[in-house]
């Protein structure tokens, strides 16, 4: 392959544009709304309409000087580079970026998953020469189970312990709405109670056509009323004084990390639900095999194992070691990208 027109810090050389830059830049393409990908302070932002709406909701209308919304599948010419966004299946509006320049095709996946999810546009496979893939769950121990089976474990616990509140720790953007949607899909139609931090983003999802059923605010609700109910809260709230208002709560957590029981124990999670918005090991391998790329750049996660695997498949592979910048220890900015060991509640 020719020298790629994308640099290892995800700068698209011919148009001086960065993908998901951690520092403010003149021009940025944003794959999705999680804080480790979407930052405020860029001059010009290009993203899907849903992502633009999410950024404005989270960071304010003026979090970038200008926004350009680009629909999925619509090619956009910028000085000889063609940019097309394809669904990544990670959260509402999440996109992979296809870049075409002088016959070379590069795909930057952002975060993605291939499992069914009613709250996100389904992943589309894009052929390319160079694939820049995430590797959040890039170890063969990560084999995500069926999310509906995991959700029914929550509902079973609820029927076995009907006097206890069930608090499900979920990141406010994406996971919370997917969890609610899964609960509905499994036939539970009682009101679901929300921690205050969830409300705006649930509203936004509903406005963008994702039905979530009846939602109520948990804050201000009498303790007795919350017994035997499902409450969706950010992971940081599980250990916080906030959860003391609940009736003898069962602490559940929806995250791909929850497959490791020792991790669940560390975070005092009693009911781990292995529900992830990232590819597991098998989906990562499947994507690498199917996209046709000869060169794989690996970022965001357990790069070493996936690079080793790709090289074993005869591919050219290298880790990018992009320094994801750190948020506070409690919440890695709304995504499960953080390693539980780094002191986050993931």
């Amino acid at each position: 392959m020719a020298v790629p027109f994308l640099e290892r810090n995800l700068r698209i050389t011919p148009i001086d544009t960065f993908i998901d830059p951690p520092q403010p830049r003149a021009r940025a393409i944003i794959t999705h709304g999680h804080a480790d990908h979407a930052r405020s302070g860029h001059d010009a932002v290009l993203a899907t309409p849903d992502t633009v709406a999410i950024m404005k909701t989270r960071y304010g209308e003026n979090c970038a000087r200008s926004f350009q919304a680009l629909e999925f599948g619509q090619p956009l010419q910028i000085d000889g580079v063609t940019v097309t966004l394809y669904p990544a299946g990670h959260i509402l509006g999440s996109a992979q970026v296809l870049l075409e320049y002088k016959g070379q095709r590069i795909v930057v996946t952002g975060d993605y998953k291939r499992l069914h999810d009613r709250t996100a546009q389904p992943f589309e496979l894009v052929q390319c020469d160079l694939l820049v893939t995430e590797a959040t769950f890039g170890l063969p121990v990560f084999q995500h189970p069926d999310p509906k089976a995991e959700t029914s474990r929550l509902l079973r616990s609820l029927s076995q312990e009907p006097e206890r509140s069930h608090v499900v720790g979920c990141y406010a953007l994406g996971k919370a709405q997917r969890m609610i949607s899964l609960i509905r899909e499994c036939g539970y139609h009682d009101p679901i109670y929300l921690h205050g931090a969830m409300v705006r983003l649930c509203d936004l999802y509903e406005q963008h056509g994702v039905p979530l059923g009846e939602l109520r605010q948990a804050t201000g609700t009498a303790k007795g009323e919350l017994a035997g109910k499902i409450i969706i809260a950010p992971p940081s709230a599980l250990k916080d004084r906030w959860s003391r208002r609940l009736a003898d709560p069962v602490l559940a957590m929806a995250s791909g990390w929850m497959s490791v029981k020792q991790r669940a124990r560390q975070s005092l999670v009693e009911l781990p639900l292995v529900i992830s918005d990232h590819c597991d090991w098998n989906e990562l391998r499947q994507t690498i095999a199917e996209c046709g790329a000869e060169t794989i750049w690996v970022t965001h996660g357990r790069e070493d194992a996936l690079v080793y695997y790709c090289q074993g498949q005869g591919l050219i592979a290298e880790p990018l070691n992009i320094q994801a910048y750190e948020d506070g220890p409690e919440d890695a900015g709304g995504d499960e990208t953080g390693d539980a060991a780094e002191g986050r509640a993931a």
Partner: protein
Amino acid sequence: MKRFAELLELLALTPSRNRKIAALSTYFSDVPDPDRGYALAILTGALSFKNVKPAMLREVVLEEVDPNLFAMSYDYVGDLGETIALIWPHQETAEDLPSLTKLIDLFNTTPKADLPRLIAALLTRPSTNERWALVKLATGALRIGVSARLAKTALADYGGKELQDIEEVWHGLTPPYGELFAWLDGKTGRPEINHTARFHPLMLSNPIDEDKDLAKLAPSEFAAEWKWDGIRVQLILGSGRASLFSRTGDDIAAAFPDIVDNVSGEAVLDGELLVGHDLMPATFNDLQQRLNRKIANQKHLTDFPAFIRVYDMLFDGQNDIRSLPWLERRRHLAGWLQANPQSRLDLSTVIPFKDWDELARIRRQGADEHGHEGVMLKLMSSPYVPGRPKGLWFKWKRDPNVLDAILMYAQRGHGKRSSYYSDYTFGVWKGNEIVPIGKAYFGFTDEELRRLDKWVRAHTVQAFGPVREVEKQLVFEVAFDSAQESKRHKSGVALRFPRINRIRWDKPAAEAATLADVELLIDAT
């Protein structure tokens, strides 16, 4: 097996002790014999399989998984059993695992050569949780935060008995505990146990609080003995070979044939197992050569002969004397030793003293000159009360030594701390170089652990597999019970029972201790 897998998961994840007990109790009432008995055996560590071992499971997995990917995964997960369960790449079999009883039978009766194929077939199913339980069962390394004591508490709860009642019969029973459950279900009486073969729960001491306790205790009512630095044992003598139990009731006779083959008489004795020639205690380092070995080898038997320094007597002949006061029991013990001369037993001496100040002086002197760990105080009027009763026996340990050492390497922990860099190797100055003198993995809070983990990740110089070498900047105040010469450590010094006393975020590494400082603390023994 499904039910057992659910129980294991609940036990692993429920932080509440009461809820664990309730879950066990429910399990015992829901599940029939002999499955529930085998479950109990697994939870109390009473079951092991001759041919099913962690190393074999690892080999089974490495037939299917790239070894490097396995190593990276194990490093990440931090628990071998869990890594195996999570990484197993096949899920085709839809049918349920066989019952617990059937599985145990398969593990015990399948020829060794066929076991890998059996394990692979059993692992090949969709539920990670069942694979996890299966691996836990096969390897016996549960790591789910359930002690044998908790399981026995649940038995007491289930059968409406006192924990003491369970403890009394426990060591005479074997899996799958049919007669135990029949008794707990009220179908039969309490199982008859031959007392000479069974472990009697030990009487334990409480640490003394010098400021609060001493003022309240009358010196004339207490006897003092040295706190011997060995392991607590119970020796049971009668017809047949003697039995030797550790403080938790594990049968350790096979590891100490030099004791059990050289004692005679009839009694149940309580004492400290030590090693040394001519009944002279050597260091704990020497004793360690003999510990954690199922069977002793000849060289160890010659180099480190074991003996027991006895200090209490529970049965004199067939007579249960536990209700007698300490002073009376002591008289029985001395009389018995005189009537039954022994080459591998001797009597722990009583230290005469008038008041606490005098004893404090003796204690300090004993620590400085002979490396004694401290003294034991026993209320002379007290009966032998199993468990840790308040106010009867006290341990008065000497003050720990402390020194400032520099963090050199950190390693990821296991179990509850998997993924955290929680095992620390630290060193002291030797000229311009820093030499390691010990390793510690406790003495800090969870909060401090998180901060240490972050520090280690941010200050790594090099990584060697799971070990990270860090910048030599962070000072720990390390507390330890004693320092001894050691050939194993590059520094020539080994610390006994080191723990992190404080993390000196403030202190520059240049001000940490030197090897010469440490050598001054080496015991006189």
